[in-house]
């Protein structure tokens, strides 16, 4: 590990198989705390699978086999004693396409806190205000919190999803190509929020846009066909890659 930060997530010998395909092969890497880590690589290389393994969302798919360890703050999330719902509360997730819940803007944000036991009206109001501000959405929606989330634009919905993820006070935010379904202006909004949020959160995001990785990432993990090819501080990996496959990818020879 470099001197930049202590690791918050330690991935050890992680293997994922899906219906006979070996999707992730022996991945071992540390994700630094309170930094933005970008997982890059061509499509189908296992980026999303790796991300979804970090909060065990991958288990929602039938026929997935996972082996290896993912240590978050020293605890293996695959340990039998780990409460999945509690672990997922600590590790937030933002999907590729905005996926607001079929309820009001307000209820979308309080959904998480409520299932984890928050009841007090004033506390919930506060969470809603705080999270919407942190996601840069407050000014646009504060007068219509009771309206259905389905009424928002795609860009607003994605920021709502960010706010909703923040509402359960996670330590880590996993983002799966969070801007790929958005127009450039909304994408810009999301990127700016992520840069602001990294002082409080460990952010891991998947992207296939190299320029986005350059703009956002402190640390880069490059996957190719399920293998971890190279990882390190962003400026090193993106400017002076050591591995030939990384070089080829960065030059656009493989995609």
């Amino acid at each position, binding site marked *: 590990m470099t001197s930049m930060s202590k690791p918050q997530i330690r991935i050890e010998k992680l293997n994922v198989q899906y219906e006979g395909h070996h999707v992730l092969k022996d991945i071992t890497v540390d994700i630094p705390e309170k930094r933005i880590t970008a997982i890059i690589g061509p499509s189908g290389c296992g980026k999303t699978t790796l991300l979804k393994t970090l909060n065990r969302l991958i288990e929602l798919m039938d026929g997935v086999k996972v082996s290896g360890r993912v240590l978050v703050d020293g605890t293996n999330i695959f340990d039998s004693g780990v409460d999945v719902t509690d672990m997922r*509360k600590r590790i937030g997730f933002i999907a590729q396409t905005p996926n607001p819940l079929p309820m009001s803007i307000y209820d979308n944000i309080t959904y998480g806190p409520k299932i984890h036991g928050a009841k007090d009206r004033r506390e919930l109001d506060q969470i809603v205000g705080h999270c919407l501000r942190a996601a840069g959405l407050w000014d646009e929606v504060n007068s219509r919190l009771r309206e259905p989330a389905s009424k928002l634009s795609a860009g607003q919905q994605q920021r709502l999803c960010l706010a909703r993820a923040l509402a359960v006070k996670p330590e880590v935010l996993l983002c799966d190509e969070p801007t790929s379904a958005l127009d450039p202006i909304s994408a810009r909004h999301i990127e700016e929020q992520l840069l602001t949020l990294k002082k409080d959160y460990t952010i891991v995001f998947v992207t296939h846009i190299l320029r986005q990785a350059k703009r956002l990432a402190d640390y880069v993990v490059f996957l190719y066909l399920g293998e971890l090819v190279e990882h390190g501080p962003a400026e090193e990996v993106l400017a002076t890659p050591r591995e030939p496959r990384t070089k080829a990818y960065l030059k656009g020879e493989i995609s």
Partner: protein
Amino acid sequence: MDKRRIEENFVKGVMIASTMIVVGSLLAVLIVVLLKGAPALSLSMLTQTPKGGYYLGKEGGILNAIVGSLYLAGGATAIAFVVSLPTALYLHEYAKRSKLASFTRQSLDILWSVPSIIYGAFGYTLMVYLGMRASLLGGIIALTLLEFPIMTKAMDETIRMVPPRLKEASYALGATKLETTFNVIARQASPGIVMAILLALGRAIGDAASVLFTAGYTDNIPRSLLDPAASLPLAVFFQLATPFPEVQQRAYASGAILLVIVLSLSVASRLLTRRFMRQVIR
């Protein structure tokens, strides 16, 4: 070129004609029933039970059948809902593609196509076995059996349409399966669930065969679950079977009332669905 255009126009013409036949038959049924029943339609039809000599064309109305039908179909729909929703959710979120799920779905398909007289006969056998007489309860049981497959299948289909990304969103926040199922999936599917309920209610309220032996027929409004209950479809049946033109006219009037109830259910389901659609994520 010309041949293709003729083809195009011809097929389009066939489609328009087919559509007209469908819409036309609905209108024809409505118009005939309303026209033939109109002379007998009166306020007393709706507000009174049959009085002395009613079946000979004298005083009274069919309040017994209206109330009976609402009790029968309402009761059956309530019970069917309580069982169908958990079944559909279970099939979808828990049993998934297991053998149990496919067996249940297969059974529902079969039950769906069982003629309602069979439910009536089954209900009757059950009642004889239990020593019950024709009653509101018996009718409700037979109609519930009729409604199960209709409602469960309709719900199953609507739940199937819920996008997986919504489930993912809920799980990612640390929700349990139960929380996800009831707070997200059932909510997203709520317009379809309402449709399923009203579809089953509509089928039940119009069904004659399943209540024939089970609910019986009476001139009174049932005062307990064990009293026999009249129903609109059977009112039509019995009135049409009399040799008196005035009473046959009342059969059409009863039919018109039944039609109006079914149509209002359909309109209500549209309005309700629209209301629930507001929250739904597309």
